Each structure stands twice: as C-alpha cells, then as structure tokens.
C-alpha cells in the first residue's frame, strides 16, 4: 500500500499540474487534427484536447522518449508527448480493425473512449529522461512499498504506478468527472487506470486491457516504430497484416475462459517482426554502450545529490514523487544555477556537452576466455544482471572495490560497473493464435507453435555487453581496466581475453 506521504505528494503534483489550470474547462474545446511524422493525420477528440492542454500532459514535451540516446543517435529527440499521441492513434487503428470483425461492435461499445483515455494518460508519470530516471527511483523506499516483494503492485513498472496513482487521485477524478459532464461523455476512469498498469480482474474483459498492455499493444507498436524511425534504424513490421489478423476471441487457457485479443495464423509473421524489432532496438539503441554511460552518469548525479544533500530543481530526490517535478530541461538547467566549479555543475555539464565516461572493460561472451568451456564463471557473474531491488547496491560495491584496487585514481562517482538487464521476453506465452476453422476454432500459444522467445533470448544473450566505465584519461583507464580484470578474476574466477581491454581503445 502507498504510504500517506506518497499520496500527499501525488496530490500536490495533481494540484499543481492539473487543478491550477482548471479554468481551461470553461471554454469548450474543438476537435483537433494532428499531423504525426509516423502515423500521418489523426484526430483528437474535444475532451481529449482539454486534457492534453493541461501541464500534466504538456510536461511530457520536455521528457525525451529514449532518454540519453540523442547523444548517440542525434535525431532521437522525440518526446513522451509525441509517443502519447502515437499510442492514441495506434489504439484507434487497432480498434478500427477490430470493429470490422463480426461481433466486435457490441464488445467495444462504450469502451473506445476509455481505451483512448488510458492511452492518453498512460505515461503521465514519467520522470526526466524517461526510463533512465525510472531505474533510479524504482529503488526508493516509497516506490518499493508499492512494487517491492509482497506489495500490492509487485513487479510493476514504476512510471506506470505513478501514472496510476495520478489518475486515481481524488482531485484528478473530480476534474475528470467535471470534464465528462461538460463534454457529455461517460468513461470509467478506474478501468482506464487499471489498463495503464495492465491489471484486469474480469476474464471477459482482458481484450480491453490488451489494446494498451498486451502482446501486440498500441504502446509497443508506437515506441518500436517511433524509436526506430528517430534513431535512424529502419524497422519493418507488417501492421496491415497484423491488424487484419487481430480479433477478439474467448480462449480456454489456464483453466479459465478468457476473452482476449488473438491473431489468426497469418498474424504470426508480424508478431515475429515485432519481437525482432524489439531485440534490435534493445541491443543497438537502448543498450548502446554510450547510452549506458550516460545512464550511469545520471545515476552519479543522483548519488552525489543524496550523499551531499544537494537538490535538483528544489527536489531532494529522496522520493519517487520528486522525479515527477523534474523534466529533462529542468535537470540540465540546474547546472546554470551553480558556480562553474561546483561538482554538480560539472557532472551535469559533462552529460550535456558529451564529455562522457569511457569503457575500461567489456564483459561479454566474446571477451571472456573460454578456457572454462562451460562458461561457468561468466554465468556466475550474471547473477548481478538480474533486476532485483538491491542490484545497484551490489554493483556499486563492485565499482568501489575496483576503484580502491586501482589506487583511487579519480572520483568514485566516475567509476561504474554496468550489467544491463536483458530485454523482457515471454510475449509468446501471452499470445494466442487461432487455428482450426471459423466454425470450429482452436487456439494455440504462439510459444507452442514456435519458441520465438527462446530464440530471441539466445539472440540478446549473445549480443549482451556489460561494461566498466571510468573517466576519459588513458592513465586512469589503464588502472581501472587492470583493476577490473583483477576483481572479476578474484571474485568470480573470470579470465578475460585481451579483447576485453583492447576493444575499449585505451
């Protein structure tokens, strides 16, 4: 359960970013037409325009969709705002395709506005640099009380949890109800909020949640295309084919009968394209080593603030809700308020002006000596790859040990061990394919037809890279690199090939 302080902070945020601007309800909005670089011309309904015009959604213009990737892929400066609109458009396209199917009209009656509302609000809880800050605040005590072990939203995505509590906030609900009256709409806000966190209590309603939080949901379709397009990595998914094959069916599974989105057999190829696109984006964009460097540098800023009781934009960063008040712009602007010699100014400007940390060691299958044919030692190290609550703490201990053995040649804030998690798989277990005939339908899990997730796991496993990062000074890099080799050998028994160091170009 959320603690009282958490709820109070959400309340303050809603008051500031929504209620203060309640006067915008006085003038009824018109429908708007939006031109999107990916999805072309689409319309936004009047009541949606009213919500979009509030700072709650407008602030998403100041949060980059893919965090620091713009420092590697220069055109990746698209924001959560564009993505939010894109998810509305993709939801609508999927819904329009489903409406062509016999029997779907009744099932979707009264649900379309709800799904679009959930799409509009699904990312309103994002903080600066999107998932980069999420990696930081997910470990904070107030968030752990929600997503930690045994808690109500165990293993939930932190930004979705923040969005959920914003949308279910009392003041938000009052605002929304007023909006519904003015625009003569009826949307179940609780159901929309549940969709955001992928929660579905009723087996007969799963297809509604699936549109936003399912195996081929609108969120995924938009981010795959958008992130690929703006990072300059063209990806191809046959969306026409996917929509044509999508349908709502009642599927017997796990001892229950669940009404969900399924595909016919001709939808398998686009699903595989989606999975492959995701893998490519993870390995070449989201987990590019320069992007990971920046993520570590932002963590360093956070650590510095906590250790020295410093603030970013007046926020102590001790609670997950602090991150709601900060955007990319205010994060970088903090440096301007400080003396040029202030370490915090330097740390932020090092990111902004791309004075990045460099690699001192590459940890990967190809750089580990295969003397141990079974890769036993390498496997042993990988336990720290797993995204459990104290992962960062363990990795900081490793970095500290390396730094000490290297003779403390730089600031500890500049030494990082980064073992990124693998991209999530498991989609094939959630996806059902309709086999059989129209009159006598049968269903199979995609994973029973082809274990596509296992194949993808092998792919990403092979591509996975861990790193040790340190300042861009050859003398320091050599020391940290050698110390890293020593620590990994002593602690895990790993022997590295020379390429683990030479590929770093020290």
């Amino acid at each position, binding site marked *: 359960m959320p603690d009282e302080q958490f709820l109070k902070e959400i309340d303050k945020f809603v008051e500031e970013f929504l209620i203060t601007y309640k006067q915008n309800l006085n003038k009824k909005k018109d429908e708007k037409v939006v031109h999107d670089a990916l999805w072309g011309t689409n319309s936004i309904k009047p009541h949606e325009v009213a919500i979009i015009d509030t700072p709650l959604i407008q602030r998403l213009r100041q949060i980059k969709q893919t965090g620091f990737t713009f420092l590697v892929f220069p055109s990746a400066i698209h924001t959560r705002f564009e993505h939010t609109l894109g998810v509305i458009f993709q939801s609508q396209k999927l819904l329009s395709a489903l409406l062509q199917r016999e029997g779907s009209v009744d099932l979707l009656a009264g649900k379309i506005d709800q799904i679009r509302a959930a799409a509009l609000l699904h990312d309103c809880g994002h903080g600066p640099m999107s998932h980069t800050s999420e990696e930081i605040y997910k470990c904070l005590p107030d968030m752990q009380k929600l997503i930690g072990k045994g808690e109500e939203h165990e293993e939930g995505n932190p930004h979705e949890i923040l969005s959920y509590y914003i949308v279910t906030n009392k003041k938000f609900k009052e605002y929304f109800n007023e909006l519904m009256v003015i625009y003569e709409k009826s949307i179940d806000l609780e159901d929309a909020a549940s969709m955001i966190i992928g929660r579905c209590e009723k087996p007969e309603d799963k297809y509604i949640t699936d549109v936003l939080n399912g195996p081929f949901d609108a969120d995924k379709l938009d981010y795959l295309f958008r992130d690929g397009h703006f990072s300059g990595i063209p990806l191809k998914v046959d969306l026409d084919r996917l929509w044509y094959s999508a349908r709502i069916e009642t599927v017997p599974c*796990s001892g229950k009968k669940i009404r969900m989105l399924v595909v016919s057999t001709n939808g398998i190829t686009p699903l595989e394209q989606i999975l492959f696109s995701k893998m490519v984006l993870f390995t070449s964009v989201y987990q590019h080593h320069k992007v990971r460097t920046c993520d570590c540098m932002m963590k360093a800023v956070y650590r510095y603030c906590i250790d020295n009781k410093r603030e970013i934009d007046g926020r102590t960063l001790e609670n997950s809700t602090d991150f709601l008040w900060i955007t990319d712009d205010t994060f970088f602007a903090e440096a301007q308020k400080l003396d040029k010699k202030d370490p915090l100014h330097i740390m932020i400007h090092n990111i902004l002006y791309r004075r990045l940390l460099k690699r001192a060691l590459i940890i990967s299958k190809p750089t580990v000596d295969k003397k141990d044919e079974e890769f036993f030692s390498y496997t042993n190290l990988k336990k720290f790859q797993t995204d459990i609550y104290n992962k960062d703490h363990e990795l900081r201990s490793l970095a500290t040990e390396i730094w000490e053995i290297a003779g403390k040649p730089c600031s500890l804030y500049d030494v990082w061990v980064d073992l990124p998690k693998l991209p999530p798989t498991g989609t094939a277990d959630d996806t059902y394919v309709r086999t059989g005939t129209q009159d006598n339908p049968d269903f199979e899990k995609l994973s029973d037809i082809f274990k596509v997730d296992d194949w993808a796991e092998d792919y990403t496993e092979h591509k996975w890279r861990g790193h040790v990062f340190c300042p861009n000074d050859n003398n320091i890099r050599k020391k940290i690199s050698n110390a890293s080799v020593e620590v990994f050998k002593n602690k895990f028994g790993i022997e590295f090939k020379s390429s683990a160091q030479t590929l770093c170009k020290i």
Partner: protein
Amino acid sequence: METALHPRDVLEGIFYFYPDDTFENNRETIHTAIYKIREKHFDLLGDITFRKHILFPRSRVLDELLSSLQPGLLFKRNPTYDTYEIKRINLKKSWETYLKEEFIGKEDELKSMAAEFKNLMTGINNA
C-alpha cells in the same frame, strides 16, 4: 526480514537437489510452480517478485534468473528448446564452492523445495 541470499543461489540450490536431469521448458508451468513454492518459502524466494496476471503469475525476475543460469548451469536443448537440461558437473562445483556454505541449516528446506518443484512440474503438466 531481508534475506542475504541471492535468489539465483536459491534456484541453483533447488536444481542441485532436483531429482531429474531435465525438466520441461514451459514458462507457464515453471512460473506457476515457483510462484506456489514461493508462497511457502517466502524467506528464500521472496525476492523473485511476481505479477499476478490473469493468465498465470509471471515473474520478470525469474525469467532473468533462468537466463542468467545459462549456459553454465542450465541449457535448453537445441533445436526445439523444449527441455531444460541441468549441468550436473557445474552445479556440483557451484554447491561445493559456495552454495553449501550459504545454505548451512537450510539444506533440508532446499531438498523439499526441489521435490515440490518436481511434483508441481509434473502435476501441472498433467492437470
């Protein structure tokens, strides 16, 4: 109370005492089984967090842990990926190098978890 044991070490312990050399690679069955065992042995498996999904309880952490055990301690048999095979030699090495010491006083609990895992894997498959 937080456990000092890494959940992957617990899984290694379960597989060390697992009575067979193979088990089916079926995500639903594996996740459901570990979810059920976790309810009884929360002190050891609590860190493997789960989402209570309408289809079956699923854990991103468990996916990552199983992946991290490969290729050293587990592997999926090619080309079908239908079966996980336990690498007994390496698990023995693991047990003797550090697990044995970590699980002093908990060996019986691990054995019972392994037996339970076996029963659930078979039982769920036959249900």
